[in-house]
């Protein structure tokens, strides 16, 4: 556990020091929230759900923030590879699993903090949290999204040697995951042939879970959300650990 902590601690120190990264990765979700939220609030009606669009959008943007930060944190071990620091960690008498878990928890923590900042800012633009338990539910889902997608990032990074493929991953993997998750629109409003795709997207269950916590309603049963996103987290952690083990010096 002390090794996991050491690696987590390093991640935290780096995070706190990278002011530009903190601001950079909070600004995009914030712009999404403000422009889409205020821009579409009066235009959009939510069939079968009701309520205003901004409040519907907030959980989506919170999960967006967690998603992007966590994938990016996971992929960051490519920098460690390139700057040689990974060698220092790999040659130490510690198991790969400990290193991977430390990295995952570190990434997940930063991602949850980023998402939390959006959550706090949302309180000023219309979010009312009626019950504190719901807030904790949302936080729980954020943590699960954070862990699973950091592990996902580590899995990808384990197979990559430099950052050249990063943009490709962002455009063809991460962005579709976000777009199809029902973060921006109710999944029920999609054409019927697209609905199954959204249900394959693991983030859908994270978004719906957060939405349930913050607004009290969701389109997917929150229990199913917990089961699916937890299962996905376990799966990604195993996959990440497996691929990380195979990294060569």
């Amino acid at each position, binding site marked *: 556990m002390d090794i996991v902590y050491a690696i987590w601690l*390093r991640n935290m*120190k780096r995070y706190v020091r990278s002011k530009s990264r903190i601001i950079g990765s909070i600004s995009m979700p914030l712009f999404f929230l403000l422009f889409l939220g205020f821009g579409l609030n009066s235009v959009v009606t939510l069939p079968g759900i009701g309520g205003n669009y901004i409040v519907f959008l907030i959980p989506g943007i919170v999960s967006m923030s967690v998603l992007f930060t966590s994938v990016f944190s996971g992929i960051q071990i490519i920098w460690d590879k390139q700057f*040689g620091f990974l060698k220092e960690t790999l*040659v*130490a008498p510690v198991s790969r699993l400990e290193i991977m878990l430390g990295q995952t928890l570190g990434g997940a923590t930063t991602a949850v903090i980023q998402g939390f900042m959006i959550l706090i800012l949302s309180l000023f633009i219309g979010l009312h949290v009626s019950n504190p338990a719901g807030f904790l539910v949302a936080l729980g889902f954020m943590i699960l999204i954070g862990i699973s997608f950091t592990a996902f990032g580590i899995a990808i990074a384990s197979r990559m040697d430099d950052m050249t493929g990063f943009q490709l991953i962002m455009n063809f993997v991460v962005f579709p995951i976000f777009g199809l998750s029902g973060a921006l629109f109710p999944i029920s409003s999609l054409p019927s042939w697209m609905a199954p795709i959204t249900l394959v997207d693991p983030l859908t269950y994270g978004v719906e879970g957060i939405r349930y916590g913050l607004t009290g309603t969701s389109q997917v049963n929150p229990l199913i959300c917990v089961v699916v996103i937890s299962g996905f987290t376990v799966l990604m952690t195993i996959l990440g650990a497996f691929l990380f083990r195979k990294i060569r010096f």
Partner: protein
Amino acid sequence: MTIALHIDNLTKRFNELVAVDKISLDIDHGEIFGLLGPNGAGKTTTISMLSTMLKPTSGSATVNGIDIERNEDGVRKSIGIVFQDQSLDEELTAWENMDFHGRLYRVPADLRKQRITELLNLVELENRKDDIVKTFSGGMRRRLEIARGLLHHPAVLFLDEPTLGLDPQTRNHLWQYIATLAKEKGITIILTTHYMEEADQLCNRVAIIDHGKIIALDAPKNLKDGIGGDVVTIKSPDPAAVVAAMSEPWITRVEQHNDEVVINLKNAEQHISAIVTLLNAKQVDIESLAIHKPTLEDVFLFFTGKTIRDEEADHKTNMRMYQRMVRH
């Protein structure tokens, strides 16, 4: 003397390429041992195997009495390593880099603190301990890496090209650190280098490696004495004629390298006029003539028939050909 490192027929193949070819070697505890050779000779591969980063194809080795294949963690605990390429976290301070390392090697908190202070003092970075590594010069980074490698009190410290890319002044400075370290800490230091001077100045013993094989192994002084005295280099438009003229009994060895002739002989100073007279008598032109005491460079030339620079050029061509083959 106890043995710190025992290497027995260690071999590494990468497909067709034999990077390390049946190396056998014993290194005593407390020795500064140099693996000397051109780039691509197999030095780093050897170190990678000894530090458990790479599995040998065949052969075996023990570090501090521990088998490198059977007990990886045991070996990892007893070695410190400074890689050829930098491996610090540039966003962290010197202290934090040390602290992270201490935690990874499970050095208890109070001991960790005490050793970090002591080691940062030793490499004279104590007053920069809270500065981010990004702001450090190349020499400072190397010193920090060496200090870090010592934090868990390893029995053996590997330094892979410790002064590569540093300016001569910093290099000299670093040699002093390494020498002091070996003396104060009494640990075994194994360093790879392709700087002949470095091996000569620092190492108790040197193994000269070429094409994955050890071609000479001894104390630098013995190696230099072994090639038959001083070195006279004669440059001439007709080097073959120079070789032909050099048949006196006091000449130990004559060899031609391109347009130069290298002559080994004892007490060169006393024979210079004789050499010049000989060449004049045969009407061979001399472009230049130089005498020097033998260096490890001459030892390398003696054993391989090539200068270390030629070898590196060769290696580069080989690599290029190899890459072309792979691509097609």
